[in-house]
C-alpha cells in the first residue's frame, strides 16, 4: 500500500489515533497505553504545580517530547482570555506551537462556546500558534475556524467522556466535504467501532482519552483502538460496496445442478 499519512503544520503523521493522557491510574500506565496505541500526538493539560508537595515525577518524564508531538489543551477554560493565557504558558514550556483550543460553554455538557472559541482562535493564529479547535459538529463553525487559519478542525462525536459515539454522522460528512484542513473527531468515542466508523467516513484522525483510560483494561483498549482506526482507515481507502435492499448472490449461477 502507498504511504498513508495526514499532515499538520507540515508534519506527517502515520498514526491517525491521537490520545489524551488524563484519568490513568499512574504515569506508568499512561506511558504503556500510549505506546500500545501507536499514537504520535498526545494531549496534555496545563495546571498549577502543587507547591506544598511538588511531586518529583512529571508527566514529561514519561512522555519524551522528542518522540511524541505534545498537544497542550485549554481544558477547563471558559473564556477566550483564559484559553489564550493557557496557550501562551504552554508554548513557553518549549514543546512546540500546537494547541488544542477548547473554550467550554457549560460544565454539564462541556460543549464548546463557539463565539469565544472563534475569538481565541483569531488571537492565537495571529500569534503564530498552530490551532486545533474543539468544536460542535457544526459545518459553519468548522468553516469559520478554517478561514481564520486553524490547522485542523475537531468536531465532537458526542459530549466529552460520554462514549456515545458519532451522534450526527451526517454533519460530520458535510464538514468533511467542505474542509481543506484535516478533520479530527474529538471526544465522545466509546469503543473501537466508533473509531472505525469515523475512519470509514474519511475523517483524518480521532482524538480520545476516556474511552481508553476509562476502560476496564486500558492497555487492551488502546490496542483495540489502534486496530479499529487502522481497520476503518483501510476500509475507507479500499472503498466499500454500495448498500442495497436485496441480495446479490456471491456464488455463480452458471453450472448449477438444478
Amino acid at each position, binding site marked *: 500500500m502507498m504511504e498513508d499519512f495526514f499532515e499538520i503544520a507540515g508534519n506527517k503523521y502515520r498514526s491517525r489515533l491521537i490520545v*489524551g*493522557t*488524563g*484519568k*490513568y491510574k499512574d504515569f506508568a500506565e*499512561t506511558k504503556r497505553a500510549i505506546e500500545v496505541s501507536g499514537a504520535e500526538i498526545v*494531549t*496534555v*493539560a*496545563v*495546571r*498549577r*504545580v*502543587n*507547591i*506544598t508537595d*511538588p511531586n518529583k515525577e*512529571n*508527566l*514529561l518524564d514519561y512522555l519524551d517530547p522528542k518522540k511524541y508531538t*505534545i498537544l*497542550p*489543551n485549554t*481544558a477547563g477554560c471558559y473564556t477566550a482570555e483564559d484559553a489564550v*493565557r493557557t496557550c*501562551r*504558558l*504552554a508554548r*513557553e*514550556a*518549549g*514543546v512546540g506551537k500546537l494547541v488544542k483550543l477548547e473554550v467550554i460553554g457549560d460544565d454539564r455538557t462541556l460543549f464548546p462556546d463557539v463565539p469565544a472559541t472563534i475569538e481565541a482562535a483569531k488571537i492565537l493564529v495571529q500569534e503564530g500558534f498552530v490551532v486545533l479547535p474543539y468544536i460542535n459538529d457544526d459545518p459553519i463553525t468548522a468553516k469559520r475556524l478554517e478561514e481564520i487559519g486553524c490547522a485542523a478542525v475537531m468536531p465532537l462525536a458526542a459530549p*466529552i*467522556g460520554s462514549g456515545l459515539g458519532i451522534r450526527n454522522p451526517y454533519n460530520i460528512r458535510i464538514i468533511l466535504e467542505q474542509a481543506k484542513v484535516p478533520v479530527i473527531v474529538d*471526544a465522545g468515542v466509546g469503543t473501537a467501532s466508533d473509531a472505525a466508523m469515523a475512519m470509514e467516513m474519511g475523517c483524518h484522525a480521532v*482524538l*480520545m*482519552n*476516556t474511552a481508553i483510560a476509562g476502560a476496564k483494561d486500558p492497555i487492551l483498549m488502546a490496542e483495540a483502538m489502534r486496530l479499529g482506526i487502522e481497520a476503518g482507515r483501510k476500509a475507507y481507502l479500499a472503498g466499500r460496496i454500495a448498500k442495497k435492499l436485496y441480495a446479490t448472490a456471491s456464488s455463480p449461477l452458471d453450472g448449477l445442478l438444478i
Partner: protein
Amino acid sequence: MKLKINGEEREIADGLTVTALLEELKIRPARVVVERNREIVAREVYGITRLADGDMLEIVHFVGGG
C-alpha cells in the same frame, strides 16, 4: 516579603530570584513555566529576575489531560 504563589500566600526572603524561589520550593525549572503578575517569565531570565513584595506568581506544568 509576601508573595502569592498559585493562589497561596507565602512569606519568603526579600529579593529572591525566580531561580532561588524554585530551588526553595524544590521545583525543577526545566519542567515548569512561571508567570509573574500575568506576564510570562522567560526561562533564560529566571536567574536575574528578582521578585518583589506582593508579586502574584503562577507556576504551572503539564499534567494528564484529554
